[in-house]
């Protein structure tokens, strides 16, 4: 079973991800896993510049307090956990200073997130389901 371990910093889960503009060259970021974020990945403006991400559209997101964010650029890009194949998604380019992984990343990459007092792991959802199948 493929398992990637992350770390918990100040009570928040972080995991290493690879982000790429083209599914080839990539940069590794330690990303905060935010299950309240419905998107794929959000990267800071400076990271988007380094990666060479090209914005294709704009959008907004609903903040936790119900208000709307300022408009943000969106770019097509790729991301994955180290050792996995890249998956394409819409990358939000935000004013935040951290790279953030959202629920769409888990869905597209087929990952389950396990958060415990000792740390955080991401594992293959398919492997997890297979291991829980009752044996005949």
């Amino acid at each position, binding site marked *: 079973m493929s398992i990637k371990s992350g770390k918990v910093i100040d009570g928040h889960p972080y995991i290493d991800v690879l982000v790429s503009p083209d599914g080839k060259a990539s940069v590794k970021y330690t990303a905060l896993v935010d299950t309240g974020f419905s998107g794929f990945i959000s990267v800071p403006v400076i990271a988007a510049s380094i990666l060479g991400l090209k914005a294709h559209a704009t959008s907004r997101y609903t903040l*936790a307090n119900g208000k709307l*964010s300022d*408009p943000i650029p969106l770019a097509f890009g790729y991301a994955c956990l180290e050792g996995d194949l890249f998956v394409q998604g819409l990358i939000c380019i935000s004013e935040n200073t951290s790279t953030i992984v959202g629920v769409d990343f888990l869905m597209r990459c087929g990952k389950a997130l396990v958060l415990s007092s000792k740390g955080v792991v991401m594992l293959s959802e398919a492997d997890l389901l297979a291991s829980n199948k009752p044996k005949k």
Partner: protein
Amino acid sequence: MPDERISVTPSTRDIALRGEAIYEQKYQAEYEKTLRGKYVAINVNSSEAIVADTGEDAIRLALERDPDGFFHLVRVGHRAPFEAGWYMSCVD
């Protein structure tokens, strides 16, 4: 909504405001009757709307039609296509 085409290098805010104005004036009332939950890419130059099941598909289709276009993504019946978690909300 201004009539002139948007400038060659519009800001993120320019694109978003124009896209939202086009959506509200031309599409929102009709789409909210039948297309709730769908994603719409608004071409802010042509005012064309591309509807798809995902935001990614809406933008990809819109780019195929107009590779040089500027687009704003909305979600029918939602205030925004994405929801932010606590971190993004605190820093924004």
